[in-house]
C-alpha cells in the first residue's frame, strides 16, 4: 500500500479556511446520526469533550478510560490556564496574534491552517466553559480575569487558581455525565484499549481489556477516535501521571497510522528537582509562577552550597533577564529549560546533585504583599512545601526542567483524521497544532478545541461520504486481533524472568533522558538506537510479570505499556537523528547559533516527518508533508 499524505487543507486565505470548510462539508442528517456508533478512547479534555459533544449531536458513543472514572484523566493536572483570543484586556490581542504567537512559539513547524482554526475557536471554548459553570478567576466587577503566560506579550490566559485543568476537565466530565445519563454515551471505565481493528482498511473497532476482570472484548463502531494523550512516560520520569502511555497510538501506528514528529518533546522549565533514585515521577509547578518569580543561579560556583540568603544580590545571575531582556523570565519553555541546563552544566546549579536553579518570589512579595502571591499561587506553594519540606515564601523555590508534554503524535489531516480512514486522533495524541514547541496554556485550548468544536463537525464528513457500514464484533478481523491480544498477554505472563517491569522502564527512561532528552547529538542518538533493541530483547526474555490475566493485575498493565515504549523509543530516536536541525523541543547540539540558540534549517527540514511502521527491528519509512507558509514568514525566533 503506498501512502500519500493529503492534508486536505481548504484553499483560500488562512482566515477563511475554517468557514469555507464548514460551508462546504457534507452533513449527516440529525435523524441519521443515531445510526452511527463512535468509539472514543480516553476521557481527558479532548476525549471527554468529544464524547459529550458527539452524544449531544445524537451519535451513539462508547467512551473508554483506564482510570476508575473519566474525571481522573491527566488533563486534570494542568495548572496555569487556557489561552483565548478574547482581547478582554484591550491590550492588542486578536485571533491573528494568537495564531501568530502559536506558529512562532512552535518554531515554524506547525501547520498554518490548523493553528488558525485553533485560534478562531479559542473564544468559543471560554464561552462554553463559563456556561458549564467552570469557576474561572474573576475581578471585583464580576468579569473574567486574565494573566500573561510564557511566549506571549498579551494577557490572554484564563485561569481558575492553579487548577485550571481540573476545573475544565470537571466541566467536560459533567457534560459527559449528562450524556451518559441521557443514554447517548456508554462509559467503560477501568477499561484499556489494547489494539485497534481495521476492516477493509478502515478503523472499525478496538480490542479492550477490563482491568478488573481481565476480560478481553471486541467493540465495533463506525469510527474510532483516539484521545489518549502523549508519550512523555517513555522517559520514565516525567510530569505525566503514572498511567499515561503510548499504547493506543502505538498500536494504531503498527496497524498503519503514521506517527508524526515524535522527536518534538517538551521539557517544562519549572518542575521540582529529583530528590533520589526512588523518584517515581516529577511534579510540575505551573509556569505562571514565572510571572512573579525571578530565576537565578549564583554567579560563583563556590556559592552553590550556601543558603540563598547568604548570597548577596550582586552575586546572583538572573540569567533569563540578562539574556532575554524583553521577555525575561517569561521566555518560552524550551529556551528557559535549556538555559537552566546550561547553568547547571557549568556547575552553577543548586540543591541535591546540583541539578536545580532558584525561582525567587521575594521581590514580588515585597511589591505586592504576601497575600496577593498567596492568592495567585497558594496551592503551588503548599504543594512545593509538601514535597520538599521547604517554605517558598521565605526562601526561593528550586526548580529544574522535566519532560512534560509531547508535541508529536499520530499524523492527522485538517479533519483530524489519520491516514487510516475512520481513525481520528485529537488532543495531545495528534501532532497537528503545536509544531516543535507548545506555548503555555495552549494544551487545554487544543484539547477542548478538538473535542468540542472541530472533531464533532469533521467526523460527520467521514460518515456522509463513507457508507461502508459497521461490521459486527464477530467479524474475522476482530477475532484475529482479539487472539493477537490474548497471545501477547499470555506471553508476558509466561516469561517469568528475573527483572521487574519497573526496572526495565527505569532503564529505558534513563537511556532516553541521557541520550534523547534535552540536548541530543548524532552520537548519543546512535547509542540509544543500539541500546534500545537490546533492552527490548532482554525484556521479552527476562521480565517477571506475576499474577493472572483474568484479574486486576497492575504489573500486567504496566508490562504491556512498557513493551510498547520499548518499541516506540526507537522511533523517537530515529526521528531525532534524521532531523539535522534544532527547533523548539528538539535540540541537536550540532545545530546551534553562536549564542547557543536553536538553529533551524528551513530549506531542508520545513516538513512534518511522518513515519510508517515496517515491523519490529525494521527501519521505519519516512514520509514528508511539506509545510507551506502562506500567511506568515519563517523567521528565527528571537525573544531578546
Amino acid at each position, binding site marked *: 500500500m503506498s501512502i500519500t499524505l493529503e492534508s486536505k487543507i481548504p484553499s483560500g486565505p488562512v482566515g477563511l479556511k475554517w468557514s469555507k470548510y464548514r460551508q462546504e462539508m457534507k452533513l449527516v442528517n440529525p435523524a441519521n446520526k443515531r445510526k452511527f456508533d463512535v468509539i472514543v478512547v480516553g476521557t481527558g479534555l479532548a476525549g471527554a*469533550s468529544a464524547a*459529550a*459533544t458527539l452524544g*449531544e449531536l445524537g451519535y451513539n458513543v462508547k467512551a473508554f478510560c483506564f482510570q*476508575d*472514572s*473519566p474525571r*481522573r484523566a*491527566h488533563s*486534570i*493536572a494542568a495548572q496555569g490556564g487556557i489561552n483565548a483570543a478574547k482581547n478582554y484586556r484591550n491590550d492588542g490581542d486578536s485571533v491573528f496574534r494568537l495564531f501568530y504567537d502559536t506558529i512562532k512559539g512552535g518554531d515554524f513547524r506547525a501547520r498554518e491552517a490548523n493553528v488558525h482554526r485553533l485560534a478562531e475557536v479559542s473564544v*468559543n471554548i*471560554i*464561552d*462554553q466553559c*463559563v*456556561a*458549564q*459553570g467552570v*469557576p*474561572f*478567576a*474573576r*475581578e471585583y*466587577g*464580576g*468579569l473574567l480575569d486574565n494573566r500573561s503566560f510564557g511566549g506571549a506579550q498579551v494577557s490572554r490566559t484564563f485561569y*481558575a487558581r492553579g487548577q485550571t*485543568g*481540573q*476545573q475544565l476537565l470537571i466541566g467536560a466530565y459533567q*457534560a459527559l*455525565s*449528562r450524556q*451518559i*445519563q441521557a443514554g447517548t454515551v456508554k462509559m467503560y*471505565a477501568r477499561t484499556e484499549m489494547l489494539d485497534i481493528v481495521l476492516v477493509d482498511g478502515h478503523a472499525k473497532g478496538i480490542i479492550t481489556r477490563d482491568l478488573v476482570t481481565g476480560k478481553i472484548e471486541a467493540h465495533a463502531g463506525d469510527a474510532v477516535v483516539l484521545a489518549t494523550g502523549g508519550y512523555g512516560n517513555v522517559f520514565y520520569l516525567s*510530569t505525566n*501521571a*503514572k*498511567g499515561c502511555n503510548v499504547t493506543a497510538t502505538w498500536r494504531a501506528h503498527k496497524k498503519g497510522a503514521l506517527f508524526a514528529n515524535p522527536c518534538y518533546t517538551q521539557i517544562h522549565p519549572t518542575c521540582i528537582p529529583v530528590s*533520589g533514585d*526512588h*523518584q*517515581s*515521577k516529577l511534579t510540575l509547578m505551573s509556569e505562571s509562577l514565572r510571572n512573579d518569580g525571578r530565576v537565578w543561579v549564583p554567579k560563583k560556583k563556590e556559592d552553590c552550597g550556601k543558603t540563598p540568603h547568604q548570597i548577596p544580590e550582586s552575586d546572583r545571575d538572573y540569567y533569563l533577564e540578562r539574556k532575554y531582556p524583553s521577555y525575561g523570565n517569561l521566555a518560552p519553555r524550551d529556551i528557559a529549560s535549556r538555559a537552566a541546563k546550561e547553568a547547571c552544566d557549568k556547575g552553577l546549579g543548586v540543591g541535591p546533585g546540583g541539578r536545580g536553579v532558584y525561582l525567587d518570589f521575594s521581590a514580588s512579595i515585597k511589591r505586592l504583599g504576601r497575600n496577593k502571591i498567596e492568592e495567585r499561587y497558594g496551592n503551588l506553594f*503548599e*504543594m512545593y512545601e*509538601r*514535597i520538599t*519540606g521547604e517554605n517558598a515564601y521565605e526562601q526561593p523555590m528550586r526548580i529544574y526542567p522535566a519532560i512534560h508534554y509531547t508535541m508529536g503524535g499520530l499524523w492527522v489531516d485538517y479533519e483530524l483524521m489519520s491516514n487510516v480512514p475512520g481513525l481520528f486522533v485529537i488532543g495531545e495524541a495528534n501532532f497537528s497544532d503545536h509544531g516543535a514547541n507548545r506555548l503555555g496554556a495552549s494544551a487545554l485550548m487544543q484539547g477542548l478545541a478538538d473535542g*468540542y468544536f472541530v472533531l464533532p463537525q469533521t467526523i460527520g464528513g467521514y460518515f456522509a461520504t463513507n457508507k461502508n457500514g459497521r461490521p459486527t464484533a464477530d467479524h474475522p478481523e476482530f477475532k484475529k486481533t482479539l487472539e493477537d491480544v490474548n497471545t501477547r498477554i499470555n506471553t508476558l505472563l509466561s516469561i517469568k524472568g528475573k527483572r*521487574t517491569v*519497573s*526496572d526495565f522502564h527505569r532503564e529505558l527512561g534513563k537511556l532516553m533522558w541521557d541520550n534523547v532528552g534535552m540536548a541530543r547529538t548524532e552520537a548519543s542518538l546512535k547509542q540509544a538506537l543500539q541500546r534500545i533493541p537490546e533492552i527490548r530483547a532482554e525484556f521479552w526474555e527476562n521480565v517477571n510479570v*506475576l499474577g493472572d490475566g483474568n*484479574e*486486576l493485575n*497492575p*504489573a500486567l498493565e504496566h508490562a504491556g505499556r512498557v513493551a510498547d515504549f520499548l518499541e516506540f523509543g526507537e522511533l523517537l530516536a530515529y526521528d531525532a537523528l534524521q532531523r539535522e536541525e534544532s527547533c523548539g523541543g528538539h535540540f541537536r547540539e550540532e545545530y546551534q547559533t553562536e549564542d547557543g540558540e536553536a538553529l533551524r534549517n528551513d530549506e531542508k527540514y520545513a516538513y512534518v516527518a511522518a513515519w510508517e511502521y515496517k515491523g519490529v527491528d525494521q527501519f521505519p519509512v519516512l514520509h514528508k508533508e511539506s509545510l507551506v507558509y502562506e500567511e506568515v514568514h519563517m523567521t528565527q525566533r528571537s525573544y531578546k
Partner: protein
Amino acid sequence: MNLTLRVWRQKNANTPGQFVTYQAQDISPDMSFLEMLDVVNEVLIKRGEEQIAFDHDCREGICGMCSLVINGAPHGPLPHTTTCQLHMRSFKDGDTITIEPWRATPFPVLKDLVVDRASFDRVIQSGGYVSVSTGGAPDANALPIPKDSADKAFDAAACIGCGACVAACKNASAMLFVAAKISHLSLLPQGKVEEERRVLNMVAKMDEEGFGNCTNIGSCEAACPKGISLDNIARMNRLYLKALLKSNL
C-alpha cells in the same frame, strides 16, 4: 528508616481479606508514601510474591485516584494532603503503619487496597452538571458574577472525588461530596436554573447507592484533602428542603 507495614490483602471482591505484615527497609524520608509502597512492591516481586495493588495516577494530589486509610486516617496524618503527596518524613524510624482500603458498602473492595467508586460517577450523572450543549453559549463576559461567589464556587469545585469523606464517616455518608457539587453549581447563576431538580435527583441517587446520612460530626471535613467545608452540607440541606417543599406544592 525501617518500618513495619500491616497491609490489607484481598484477592478480589468475593474473597475475604486479611492483614499481612511486611518490612519496609531503607526508606528515605524524601520518598512519597506511594514511592515507599513501590519499593516494597519491587522487593515482593523479586521474592515471587504478587505486588500490593493500590490506585494511583497523577501522584500530584489532583486526580483523586489514590486512596488508602493510613493508621486509621483516610490519606494519612497530614491535613489537606492526599496519600500521594504524603511523604515519609511524616513517619519515624521503627514505626508500624497500618494500611487499609476505603471501607464503605458503596465502595466495594476490588483487590487489596483498590475499591470501586463508580457510585460517585452515578451520583454526578443524576444531575451534577449544567444542561448546556456545545455551541449555544453566550459571550463569557455577558453575565458578571461577583468575585466572592466565583471564589466560593471554586472552593466547592476543588473536590477531587477521592471518597475520603465517605471513608472517614461512620455512616459512610457522601454528603460532603454531593454537597460540594451542589454548592459549586448553585453558587453560580449558570447552575441556578436547574438547582431544585439537581438537589432532589442527586440526593435521591446518593441514598439509592447506599450512602448513609450525615452524622454532623464533621470527620469528612477533617479528612478532606482539599479542605471542602462542612458549610456546603448546610447549603445542600437548605436547598433540599426548599426544593422538597416546592415540589410538594
